């Protein structure tokens, strides 16, 4: 088990070295570590590697919606220098340009529009969705074809996880009467985050689950699932906590209402920080190699990168578990039947 783990980490690290080649081409200190933030953030093109002056990238669609012009489709290549792949105001196209920080902007400052581009993370999202759907559906087909049989293939891979989420997360936190209703949601969120985390560790992959937009959306889903299913007791606790004197309610009720929002906020920040920090740490150790340009640092950094990668494989699973667990706890609090007070 440990050996497999180590091999996987070394493999990932080795690829990571190749794909973070950007830094070698760059001259000044700033650019030697610039690839870290570039990797962690979203982008309008998918950059894989740079060899000399050749950039290997995947151009991505830029989609803009505005009330006057409707939906507009462009490619990221239309907004950049074909040689250096640099974005800038100089490469504006049709009234829009992408600035140096990868922001889509309109030349006319007052113009309002909604950006629906397939950015690197959106493309990554599609890949994660496709892989999750493919694996889970192929597992589901086994159950349809062989009812009552022992699991095989994809089914034997996901079954222990499904049983774990159902029996260790949903059942104890939500309770026997209602857990069945929320198990599909918890399973979906677990598998999406887990696969997102793991696939994000691949070299050249996007930092999908470490993007605050993604974690915020997932947290919002949990927020709605929790509060739309909240029963009378739950809302009574929020707006008129029982057993509390009226003057104190003036303090308690606002705190409770803030509490409704801090829960998903904590979910959002936890996942975002854990995954992004992991990526930054790995890339920083790789960045050290290019900053110091010494063999000893290179060796030490590689060892550390392997080590951190191993931890990241664990963190990927733990964070998926934690997000699912807390979602289950919040839902459990909202649907709990209180027979005391």
């Amino acid at each position, binding site marked *: 088990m440990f050996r497999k783990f180590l091999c996987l980490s070394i493999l990932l690290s080795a690829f990571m070295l190749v794909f973070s080649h950007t830094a070698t081409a760059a001259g000044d200190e700033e650019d030697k570590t610039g690839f870290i933030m570039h990797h962690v953030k979203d982008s309008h093109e998918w950059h894989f590697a740079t060899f000399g002056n050749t950039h290997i990238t995947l151009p991505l669609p830029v*989609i803009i919606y505005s009330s006057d012009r409707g939906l507009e489709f462009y490619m990221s290549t239309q907004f950049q220098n074909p040689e250096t792949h640099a974005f800038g105001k100089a490469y504006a196209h049709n009234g829009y340009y992408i600035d140096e*920080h990868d922001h889509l902007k309109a030349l006319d400052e007052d113009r309002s529009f909604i*950006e629906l581009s397939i950015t690197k993370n*959106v493309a990554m999202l599609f890949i994660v969705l496709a892989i999750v759907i493919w694996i889970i559906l192929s597992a*589901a087909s086994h*159950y349809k074809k062989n009812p009552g049989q022992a699991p095989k293939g994809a089914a034997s891979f996901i079954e222990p996880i499904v049983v774990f989420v159902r029996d260790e997360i949903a059942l104890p936190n939500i309770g026997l009467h209602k857990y069945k209703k929320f198990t*599909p949601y918890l399973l979906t969120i677990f*598998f999406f985050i887990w696969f997102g985390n793991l696939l994000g560790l691949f070299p050249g992959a996007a930092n999908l689950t470490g993007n*605050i937009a993604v974690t915020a959306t997932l947290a919002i889903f949990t927020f709605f699932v929790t509060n739309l299913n909240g029963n009378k007791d739950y809302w009574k606790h929020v707006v008129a906590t029982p057993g509390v004197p009226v003057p104190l309610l003036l303090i308690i009720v606002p705190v409770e209402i803030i509490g409704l929002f801090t829960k998903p906020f904590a979910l959002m920040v936890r996942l975002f920080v854990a995954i992004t920090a992991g990526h930054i740490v790995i890339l920083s150790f790789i960045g050290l190699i290019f900053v110091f340009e010494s063999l000893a640092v290179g060796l030490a950094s590689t060892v550390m990168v392997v080590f951190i990668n191993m931890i990241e494989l664990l963190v990927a699973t733990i964070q998926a578990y934690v997000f699912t667990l807390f979602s289950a706890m919040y839902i459990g609090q909202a649907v709990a039947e209180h027979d005391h007070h």
Partner: protein
Amino acid sequence: MDLIIPGSGLIIWQIIGFSILLYILAKFAWKPILSALEEREKSIEDALKSAEIARNEMANLKAENEKILQEAKIERDQMLLKATDTAKQIIEEAKEKAQQEGAKMIENAKAAIETEKLAALEEVKVQVGVLSLNIAEKLLKKNFAEDAAQKALVEELVKDLKLN
């Protein structure tokens, strides 16, 4: 793009993507998987339960068999004991009877012997009487011949008597 400011495009795509994922998986994956799991768990539980029942039944059956065997053993022992007793009794009775019979026979024999003896004595008495008479007759006949001869005769007679 910024690190901590969510991009609107990504949020929209994420909402759409995750909703689709949730719908597809809930409808086509989790429903059949969870129900299949539940069904299998139920069937396993049922199988275990029925196995438990069968095991209990087996144990009961075994206990019953044991009981019957035990009872049969006890009965056999009792029967053997009874048979031995009966045999002993019969032997005892036979012995007693034989003894009684023997005693009776001996008694009879004794009685017969006594009778015979008495008869013999009677006859002896008669014979003695006859002999005495004969001797007396012969003595009386020779009484007057000679003394010596008489004596010899008497001695002779007495000798004869002894011989008899």
